[in-house]
């Protein structure tokens, strides 16, 4: 039993190793232009430096003198970068400044260049169908308007979050306002539709008069009812 007691590890300090990825930034002169680029980058991708340790490579800026380096480091800190180390500069350069205690001999190896995420493309506001919509095809675009340059065939359907514009003949179905609601409208160059709808209201072909057949028509939702009116 005594032997066992001797081999168990003594209680005390527990240390574990862990590796993180730090971002290494290399400021360049002129500093004003470099900071302008950095600010632009931060506007596009605010999370780029969030919770990331940052190492500043001073190799290209140390030559500018102590004052410039201090301004540079303060500038980075005020932009929220968490500086954990420095490299590329003689430690004596920062003697006396509070940056002096930062390690200057960190070990690590470079990994692939970190690309800042590309700015997100603006969401598609409308969809253009540059031709006819054939029977059996279904065009669904829930976030905006749909414009069809050709005809919408019998047995085809077009469903839009906003309004629908059909420059040819509308022979199939058109449902508008899935997202926009009652404010959406349907326009067609020639009215031969099987069914039209806005939001939750719909009408089939037998419910509107033959007088509109073949004419350019607009369909809108007015106080809880669909109104079809000729545009010519």
């Amino acid at each position, binding site marked *: 039993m005594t032997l066992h007691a001797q081999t168990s590890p003594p209680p005390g300090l527990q240390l574990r190793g862990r590796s993180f990825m730090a971002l290494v930034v290399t400021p360049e002169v002129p500093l004003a232009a470099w900071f302008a680029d950095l600010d632009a980058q931060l506007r596009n991708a605010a999370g780029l430096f969030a919770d990331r340790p940052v190492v500043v490579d001073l190799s290209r800026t140390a030559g500018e003198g102590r004052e410039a380096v201090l301004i540079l480091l303060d500038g980075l800190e005020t932009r929220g970068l968490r500086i954990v180390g420095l490299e590329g500069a003689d430690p004596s350069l920062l003697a006396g400044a509070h940056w002096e205690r930062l390690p200057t001999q960190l070990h690590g190896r470079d990994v692939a260049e970190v690309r800042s995420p590309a700015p997100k493309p603006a969401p598609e506001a409308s969809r253009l169908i540059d031709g*006819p919509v*054939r*029977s*059996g*095809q279904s065009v669904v675009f829930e976030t905006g308007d749909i414009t069809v340059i050709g*005809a919408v*065939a019998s*047995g*085809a359907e077009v469903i839009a979050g906003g309004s629908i514009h059909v420059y040819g003949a509308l*022979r199939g179905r058109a449902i508008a306002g899935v997202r926009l609601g009652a404010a959406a409208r349907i326009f067609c160059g020639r009215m031969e539709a099987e069914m039209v709808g806005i939001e939750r209201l719909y009408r089939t072909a037998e419910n509107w008069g033959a007088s509109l057949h073949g004419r350019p028509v607009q369909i809108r939702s007015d106080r809880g009812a669909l109104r079809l009116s000729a545009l010519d």
Partner: protein
Amino acid sequence: MSKVMVVTSGKGGVGKTTSTAALGAALAQAGQNVVLVDFDVGLRNLDLILGAERRVVFDLVNVVQGDAKLPQALIRDKRVESLYLLPASQTRDKDALTPEGVEGVIAELRERFDWIVCDSPAGIEKGATLAMRFADVAVVVANPEVSSVRDADRIIGMLDSKTLRAERGEPLEKHLLITRHDPARVARGEMMKVEDVLEILAIPLLGVVAESPDVLTASNLGCPVTLHNPASPAARAYLLAARKLLGEDAPVEQPVLKRGLMSRLFGRKAAA
């Protein structure tokens, strides 16, 4: 440069097989090397229309599955030397065809022929999609009536999305062939006008073939109408269509209503 041409329609009974035989024979008569491939596995007809039904030994399914070599399955026409048939199997179903197998057969046919004319089955399922899959040119056959036109529109939509060319963003030549056109019924308003069909389908017109006993007779005799009675109006329409397919600037002749003295007097339908 070989061309793969699919003859398709969506709807059944509009004249796909008759048109495949007539167009294929017309292209062969113009000196092209032509093979007609019947994709209607389980309901084959092309062999009958070509009068080759008693010469079928191996078929498309045998070749696709590797049970027979392509030359064993090809049947050479006895009237036009450069016309061949690759028949479909009557005893199997369309699941026996695979895209890879069909691609292999088409590639092999491309080496030997100028025109590979694929007779599509009706419908929009596997058989029809496989028949159009590798096409460079499509002939959409439609009758001048609403159901046929709507189905043709559906098929054009599939040609624009399901074919290899469409998936690669390459252009696919599409032509409209109107068959079983009856000028007398059009005049009475019982049948759609050619312009109305064109307006809906919006693809170039290859030809208008009138409903005629010549076509039926030719089919029953197992001889494409362009071979059986080249002077008939229907055969003329197919021969002109074949010239257009070959890139010539041939006209499209529309069937006209012939009215005799009696019908002019009494307004009755005359034999067209």
